[in-house]
């Protein structure tokens, strides 16, 4: 469908959770005409491929604060946007298998507690009480925060999409963005497959494709699209409340509202052996082995389906939020790793602030795109890239 206007204030590239939430915050701030552009269908990217985890246990205080705000937003979501995201606060349970991992969880726990969240360290018996059927001797301990939880990702995307359409914000699906047009060193238009409307700001919220899009616009960025796989089992009656994450290998799984066990595991593939996003036998087998090793009772349970998607990874594990100093008018809203869905409600508010040139509480040294430019000192890093 052709675009409704020939000029917008803001063009948002990517109709996933980050792009839609950014449009929402911008519209509420009265930013003027906004268009969200996506080359696929709704939820075709990472927003429709993630495990729905929302956690507040992080190493960096800034991320904890963003996550806390996101938890509050998902609690309010149904009332605000009219769709039920089934946010269930069953907690996040991190598992440690050795002393080094336990020490790492404890240091995260200390930061989380100092931010006022009641995270708890658990001994093996307390872990076993939360995972019915845990293999004896499988863990040395864990950390747990009850107010973490899971959402069902799709209704969040639909709720925002419906809200935006009702508010008169244009969402153009099936519209591939080729790049931007710059004049005098700043963004003046966005080049789409449905025309080239003028705009003063382009937001790169393209998830796994955001690095590719930035490079298409002439901006060298360190974002790497990394492929991750996930599977769902047959649905069962509820038996597991928390999202479980293992520190050693990033194994994660939770039981959804539909009763399926949904989870993933990072499996390194030799380069060139897997093309695109089909599932691989190697992932299915490794994931199955990890699950059955931890919970032997699951050996007879059927795997229903598997799929894959892309994380948008950055070298320091923190997202990129802010205007690119090399191309005024180009605003980054990417680099969320595998955690865009859980941080989108709050992070997108800061993206909107960056678009509008307003001050935000984010430290540009931590989140700004300039941190990756030559000679910029690394401020902090978020290494808890699990689950």
């Amino acid at each position, binding site marked *: 469908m052709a675009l409704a206007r020939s000029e917008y204030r803001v063009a948002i590239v990517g109709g996933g959770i980050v792009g839609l939430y950014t449009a929402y915050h911008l519209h509420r701030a009265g930013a003027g005409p906004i268009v969200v552009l996506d080359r696929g269908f709704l939820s075709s990217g990472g927003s429709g491929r993630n495990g729905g985890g929302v956690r507040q246990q992080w190493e960096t205080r800034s991320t904890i604060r963003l996550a806390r705000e996101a938890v509050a937003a998902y609690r309010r979501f149904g009332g605000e946007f009219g769709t039920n995201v089934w946010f269930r606060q069953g907690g996040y349970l991190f598992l440690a298998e050795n002393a080094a991992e336990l020490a790492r969880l404890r240091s995260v726990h200390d930061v989380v507690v100092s931010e006022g969240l009641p995270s708890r360290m658990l001994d093996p018996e307390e872990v076993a009480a939360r995972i019915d059927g845990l293999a004896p001797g499988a863990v040395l301990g864990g950390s747990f925060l009850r107010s973490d939880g899971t959402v069902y990702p799709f209704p969040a995307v639909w709720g925002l999409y419906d809200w935006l359409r009702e508010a008169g914000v244009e969402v153009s699906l099936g519209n591939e963005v080729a790049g931007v047009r710059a004049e005098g060193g700043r963004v003046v238009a966005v080049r789409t497959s449905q025309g080239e409307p003028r705009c003063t700001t382009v937001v790169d919220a393209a998830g796994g494709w955001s690095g590719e899009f930035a490079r298409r616009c002439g901006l060298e960025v360190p974002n790497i699209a990394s492929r991750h796989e996930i599977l769902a089992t047959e649905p069962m009656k509820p038996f*597991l409340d928390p999202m479980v994450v293992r520190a050693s290998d990033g194994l994660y799984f939770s039981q959804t509202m539909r009763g399926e066990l949904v989870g993933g595991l990072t499996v390194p593939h030799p380069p060139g052996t897997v093309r695109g996003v089909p599932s691989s036998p190697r992932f299915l087998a490794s994931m199955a082995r990890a699950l059955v090793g931890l919970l032997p*009772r699951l050996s*007879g349970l059927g795997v229903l389906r598997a799929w894959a998607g892309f994380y948008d990874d950055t070298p320091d594990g923190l997202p990129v939020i802010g205007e690119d100093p090399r191309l005024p008018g180009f605003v980054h809203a990417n680099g969320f790793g595998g955690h865009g869905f859980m941080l989108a409600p709050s992070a997108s508010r800061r993206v909107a602030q960056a678009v509008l040139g307003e001050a935000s509480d984010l430290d540009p040294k931590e989140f700004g795109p300039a941190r990756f430019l030559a000679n910029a000192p690394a401020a902090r890093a978020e290494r808890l890239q699990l689950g």
Partner: protein
Amino acid sequence: MGSTGRARLRLGRSEVEATDGEPLLAAVGRRGWPSLVRSVRYHRPRGPFCGVGDCTGCLVRVNGVPNQRSCLRPARDGDVVELENSWPSPRLDVYGVADLLLPHGLDTVHGLRRPAVLRSAYQRVVRRLAGFGAAPDPGSARPPAPARWLRTDALVVGGGRSGRAIAGELASAGRRPLLVERRADGAPLGGVELLAGVTATMLAAGGAEGDAGFTLLGFTADGAGVAVRSPTVVVATGAYDAGLAFEGSDRPGIVTADLALSGLGLALGTTVVFGGGERARAVLERAPGEVEAVVAPGEIRPELARSAAERGIDLFPRTRLVRAIGRGHLRGVELARRDGAGRFRLATRSLVLAHRRLPNAQLAYQLGAERAWDAGAGAFVPVLDAEGRSSVPGLFVVGSAADPGATQPAAPATVARAVVSGPSPRGPPVPRAPASRPGELASYYRETLAEARHGKTVVCPCEDVLLTELEEAVRRGYRGLEVVKRYTGVGTGLCQGRYCLPEALVVLSLLERRDASEVGTITQRPPLVPTPLGTLAAFAPELDAGSP
């Protein structure tokens, strides 16, 4: 069936006698029509529907493991069989009240989100209604049997007529093909390595030598993994009988011709057959049950009419199924003449759907083989050249998996020659035969959609997705099969969309007012059938050694 020994099973509080190795469902079904399970969301009564291991109508818990398809699971002495998702029994399930309290279904997208204080209470209730069986018993854990890894120069998947013919031709051409067959009782075939009783579940690119070739993962009825690597694969997985969505079409007693002809021996009793062609005739002539009427959406073929006349069976051509009568098991069907000449009812215990066969080419689609809409078949079919090559070099599709109504399928000898000559790009696609009655199914569903509906029309029985939910999704501007699948859950259940997506496709093309080819397909996600975690885990050591 292997051994002919006796097996004693426990079913709830009673004991059931079985022949060792026969399907559990056959043993249980000898005591009368098996009511084993309730549906997932509304706890509607369900019964065996497909007879080929795909639907959710015969799920039971066996020895502490949930969701076992009793139509496939071999009976073993001492098996403890429990019923799932109902209390106290599938016939008198108290949760069935959900079906009565929610006559128009539950809108999980928009419903139950306010007030916030009640939300966690709703969530607990909804969470309890989800799922079929309880999680596996801790005592059910089994150390996985080691997986078998095999290698061949030509792999044929599917031991039906086409698969066996091609395997035979390949053997004649000097190859030693490996034939993977789901049935355990196939006769040996000279020069062919027969792997019987193995269900294929995933076909992936990449064989033993890096990128070239394929790896097939499968498993036996007892859950032992079998993997085969081969440079070429011939998919000969046949066809299956489609479902049909109408009011009450999920009632127990409504089955596919696959089930009626499965040899499970379920007592169909008085039977109405739906369909006007060869498949309906096969049901008349071979299925157990007293067929009293043949109802067809269009004309009735002369051979079928003759066969029916010999048996004194009534014929109702150009007739539509309006609704199933009966709260529990089917008691009858309400029918409408499609020329508008009125409605009538037939009392019956069973309704056999034999109106349409669909190609079973999902294994090829897992690899991304190109498919195209075929108006005549009313389905997407693989795009093939004259030798059966798909768009994936080295991957062939043959027989009714290529096209259940194939007018000129590639001859086995031709395909075998092409397989022997090795992977090469597909030639020009074979043009589709012109549709004899294009849009026939669409006009049928147009009448269904125009009908005033009182009870639920379940399009997707695995997930209890209603026809009204498809209508609502389109009304809200959600279009296309990929999007509506996510929005409603249609096609996300245990059958991997086999019984609902072909119907949803036609319905959506009417609701969206565009051609079914534009409504689109969905990505075929592995595995093909639910595959035990323990089975998959057993493949890990070999896969760790470096293959994809």
